[in-house]
């Protein structure tokens, strides 16, 4: 079983479309800046990778996550030649924080809010016409989970076309609690580097149109070979290398590929002490026997951690890597962690290679893991 990706859409701190973001990544351009709307005196960490779109600088506004979601889906539908007229496609949205930023502004500042604003269905229905929508709060593995579940809908004969999307705006409660628990105060997200000091959040939205093979009206941009999903079931926030390795092996098995067949890995690479060690440990086990080690990169070094959408954003960038034969570098990587010894981590400048397959990792709170395998459209 495999599914065609026929449309892409994305917004992030470093660009307002997939190609723009990919170019920025290849140029090593970061979206890092000082927090734009939070009171700095309340936090130890002062940096994030925000989308700079508030009408009044410094003054926050509700429903930014919903706004970006619409823009990303619009782009993806247009890219797939499916724009114009109401759509009846299922839309599966993955998110970590839903519209919790709007909840905070409601609770503290009295911005109007209804319980139907907490999820994205009513807004998607108003814009795109489809009542067949789902919001999944699957933490930072959310959009790869939704990608797999979208594929299941196609395999089970329930749909030929499914829109998969994700969005997250930074909340004070999540940013603040992360700030509280991190021993160090990072001023940048530095995946897989010994000098990393923790995770910093980013903002963004992303969308992809998934279609039954050969049913799209435009050529496939790439093909999803498989998506695996599981749960550590051991700790609410700390990852487990063993179960991550199971998810990777399961994705390979479902794709009918071995580790040696993978050309590039888009790392989860969140820059926390625990994630990067667990992810590297899992990968070194899986790829230990591979003849040719895959190239590896981590786009969070430039976009920040875009939370629920981060897995699909990595996947959309992987589609462009396969198309262009270019892998963006990990910005700021100078001293790789020992667990990543022997990895072909892309550094300093983009790597050029003939790429046929990509693996995408996404892990989240609750110990949930999802891994996707992509192949270049022939």
């Amino acid at each position, binding site marked *: 079983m495999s599914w065609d990706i026929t449309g892409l859409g994305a917004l992030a701190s470093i660009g307002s479309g997939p190609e723009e973001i990919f170019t920025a990544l290849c140029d090593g351009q970061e979206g890092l800046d000082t927090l734009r709307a939070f009171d700095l005196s309340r936090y130890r960490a002062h940096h994030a990778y925000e989308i700079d779109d508030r009408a009044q600088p410094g003054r926050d506004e509700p429903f930014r996550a919903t706004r970006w979601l619409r823009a990303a889906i619009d782009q993806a539908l247009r890219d797939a030649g499916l724009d114009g007229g109401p759509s009846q496609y299922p839309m599966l949205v993955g998110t970590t924080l839903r519209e919790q930023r709007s909840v905070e502004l409601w609770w503290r500042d009295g911005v109007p809010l*209804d*319980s139907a604003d*907490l999820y994205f269905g009513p807004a998607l229905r108003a814009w795109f016409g489809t009542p067949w929508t789902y919001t999944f709060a*699957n933490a930072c593995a959310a959009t790869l989970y939704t990608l797999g*579940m979208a594929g299941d809908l196609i395999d089970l004969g329930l749909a030929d076309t499914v829109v998969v999307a994700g969005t997250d705006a930074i909340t004070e*409660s999540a940013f603040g*609690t992360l700030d509280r*628990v991190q021993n160090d105060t990072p001023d940048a997200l530095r995946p897989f580097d010994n000098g990393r000091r923790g995770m910093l959040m980013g903002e963004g939205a992303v969308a992809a149109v998934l279609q039954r093979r050969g049913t799209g009206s435009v050529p496939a941009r790439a093909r999803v070979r498989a998506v695996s999903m599981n749960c550590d079931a051991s700790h609410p926030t700390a990852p487990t290398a063993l179960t991550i390795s199971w998810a990777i092996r399961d994705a390979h098995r479902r794709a009918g590929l071995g580790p040696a067949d993978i050309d590039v890995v888009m790392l989860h690479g969140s820059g926390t002490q625990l994630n990067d060690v667990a992810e590297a440990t899992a990968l070194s086990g899986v790829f230990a026997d591979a003849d040719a080690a895959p190239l590896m990169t981590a786009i969070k070094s430039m976009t920040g951690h875009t939370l629920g959408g981060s897995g699909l954003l990595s996947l959309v960038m992987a589609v462009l890597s396969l198309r262009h034969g270019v892998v963006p570098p990990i910005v700021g990587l100078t001293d790789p962690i020992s667990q990543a010894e022997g990895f072909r981590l892309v550094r300093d400048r983009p790597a050029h290679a003939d790429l046929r397959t990509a693996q995408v990792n996404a892990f989240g*709170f609750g110990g949930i893991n999802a891994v996707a395998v992509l192949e270049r459209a022939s």
Partner: protein
Amino acid sequence: MSGPAAVITGVGLTLPDSVGDVTDLFDVSASERGLFDREAGLRGRGMRHKDRASRLALRAARSALGDAGLLDAETFTGPAERTAVVVSSNLGNLDSVCSFVDIIARETVTGLSPLGLPHTSSNAVAGWVAIQYGLRGPNVTVCNGSTGGLDALFWARTLVAARRSDVAVVVGTEPDTEPVARLLRQQDSGPAFDGAVAVVVESAEHARHRGVRARGVLAGYARARDLSAAITAARGLDPRPVQLLDAETFTTRFGYCCGALGVLQCAAGATRLGRDDIDAVLATIGTAAGAEAAAALLLARAEGVA
């Protein structure tokens, strides 16, 4: 839908004490109803440092797993790697979000407890249920408004049909907390539910191998722009007469059930199938017109399901 059929093999309720006798809606034992000493059951071992939505959910999940014959004392005896968790909740972590914002404003982030971190993400409940029983299959949190409970059952069925899981624990949980009370007061939605309900969904084949009774089979589901379209699509070509389980029956009794509603309806339906010659029940949520979509779920007697 192609793939293996999905049946219901367990039901568990954690209802507010105030609802009184519910045997007209749920044909379950006292332990499954969780009616004895509920608040005590929300404290103690395994309940510390968890938000109210999670504690309610854990209680309901335990009852449902016990009902399904998947617990030996507190230990899960089913296939852990092939058991999914699907949680529906919309209001579950609003108390964490709002209280953390207040603390930050008052004391800066140094006033926050590190133990609050899991609850900033809307999927904390599903994580706690997985951890409690070591469930390593797909772990899914549906935050899909009023229809979320029915949607969660659909996705549990889909995980089984796609052969990603043999068992799925479906939980609907909505707590009555300060932010929830304020929100519902502002939008005139009536009192909050403050409860949880769990249903064990299982592949029919797996249930048969274990030799457990299937209470019902998930036979149809649809989302649509209005209720009548959802009902027509969910029933499909199934000729059986159905007993309707409409949303109002439950919200009148239990308050604004929100994401727990659909799971409550399904639990009620599952315990009533086979009684009084009821062959099929249809759970419905939605209206003729509204911002939120409508959904319907058909649950039928499981006799003869392969």
